[in-house]
């Protein structure tokens, strides 16, 4: 099912990035997808379960988190970080800035696990 993805800063992402981006705390704060309760029910996703988010660029697995802040169905939120960047398109339309808020993604439940930062870098970019 296609939903609208918004990326952004969260307090947890801001705090954990200052400690270490290779830490588990950082992964727990950014490898997540905040969702509306109705969307989760419709897609059969449980709170804390894993979801696969896909775009034409690629797909990632992150943890679904039920959010009371996202009150409109159809919107999902992922904090800034290397996980969400792996599925972002790079076209800047001549402005220097890619579209990072408000693009369509496919969301589905999965049994796969979210990759750790080192595994993610190795899988996508082939270096560690």
């Amino acid at each position, binding site marked *: 099912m296609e939903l609208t993805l918004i990326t*952004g800063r969260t*307090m947890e992402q801001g*705090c954990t990035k200052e400690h*270490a981006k290779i830490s588990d705390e950082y992964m727990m704060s950014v490898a997540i997808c905040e969702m509306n309760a109705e969307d989760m029910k419709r897609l059969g996703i449980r709170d804390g379960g894993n979801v696969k988010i896909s775009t034409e660029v690629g797909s990632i697995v992150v943890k679904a988190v039920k959010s009371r802040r996202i009150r409109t169905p159809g919107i999902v939120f992922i904090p800034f970080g290397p996980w969400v960047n792996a599925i972002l398109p790079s076209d800047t339309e001549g402005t*220097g800035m890619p579209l990072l808020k408000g693009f369509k993604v496919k969301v589905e439940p999965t049994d796969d696990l979210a990759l750790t930062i080192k595994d993610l870098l190795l899988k996508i*970019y082939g*270096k560690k």
Partner: protein
Amino acid sequence: MHLVSGVTCPFCGCCCDDVEVIVEDNKVFDVRNACALGASKFMGYNRHRNTKPLIRKNGELVEASLEEAIERCAEILANAQYPLLYGWSNTSCEAIRVGLEMAEEVGGVIDNTTTACHGPSILAIQDVGIPGCTLGQIRHRADLIIYWGCNPWSAHPRHIERYTALSEGRFQRAIWKRYLSRLILESARKKRYRAASLIFKGGAATLPAEREEKWILPPPGERKMVVIDVQRTRTADLADIFIKVKPGGDYDVLQALRALIRDEELDVDEVAGIPVEKLEELADLMVNARFGVLFFGLGLTMSVGKLRNVEAAIKLTRDLNMYTKFLIMPMRGHFNVTGANVVFTWQTGYPYAVDFSHGYPRYNPGETSAIDILSRGDADAALVIASDPVSSFPRRAVENLVNNPLIVIDPSLSPTALMADVVIPSAFVGIEAEGTTYRMDHVPLPLKKVVDPPQGILTDEEILQRILRKIREIKNKSSSS
């Protein structure tokens, strides 16, 4: 144990300069007055610290001497045809100045993180100008504060408390009391709802998805706070008025407000999910303010429309100045991203995305900006300083960044450093090194050194100067031979 007062926080563009740091045995023991973000930087900066220069050999990063790492950096940059020098927003103006000299020397492109945050704002400002002021003016005089597409509660936690609605100004009072009474009422409403849902629905204790917002406004002249965003953030909870706009609808709403301010009628019932009556009320509020200010964030620059959204916001502010005093300011993210723009402009005439490959500075965002250069695969080497593009750039740009020789100068081991060919650890600017930073309203502030850096760790400025000297040596050698 001793106290260092008047420390400028090196986290976000607020650059709070009232932070107090307690130091014991050259370690930060505690920090006062800082927000959660600033405190986590001061308290956690030394965790997972890398203090050794690293060079990639046979696919693995291995320890090396500083001299060897600097030599390798200079070789990479001197031999590159079109190197990219990226980052700069988390370091001092003094280091940025050396970086610009280096970019000119190697004939590369130098770009700062503006390119991936408020780049569209800069483009819009260059098109239509900007009516701005210092945050002190806003603190003392603003009676209408609008946050559009930004969430300072999460990204600039002390912005509201120090500069806007929750600050006690000379001519405007803080909205604390009103906020607290609203909080108590809201909490009581939630409790009532949960109790009712337990009785009538057998336990489903969720709040209604969306309820009709009723605007209860203080008398004219008193300070008011408005939040316009695509979702109800914690900042929106603080506001007197929250207006929810559909994702990608900001441009429509801004232009609708411009029309309403000119007393034109709209032939629609709603704009981007907002009833026209609400927009009319907001337009009235704007026109009747004595001193209004619009803060905007990445909600405008990163969504559909980009620079055109910001341009519409600036034009709205310009239109409002026909009736009252209204100002606009971008919510800058990194603590010295404004300084990066300022120093770039002093030295080259352009605030970011400056290309020296022709021997003189050239500026064309979309062509000379970091993400475009990397996505096209044009750069054949890169130096990243005080930034982490692997965590902030789209995949295709990162692929090209890591497939070419990559130098990282950073105090911590970021994902970009993990992918680099040379890593040089540096001192944390604002904690272990002095410097100058620019607050989001272009006020320069001194950054203090509160503790000494670990043995052998140099500042960004010193590292860059040593690399630059080495590059010049290599170039002189090759030109004389």
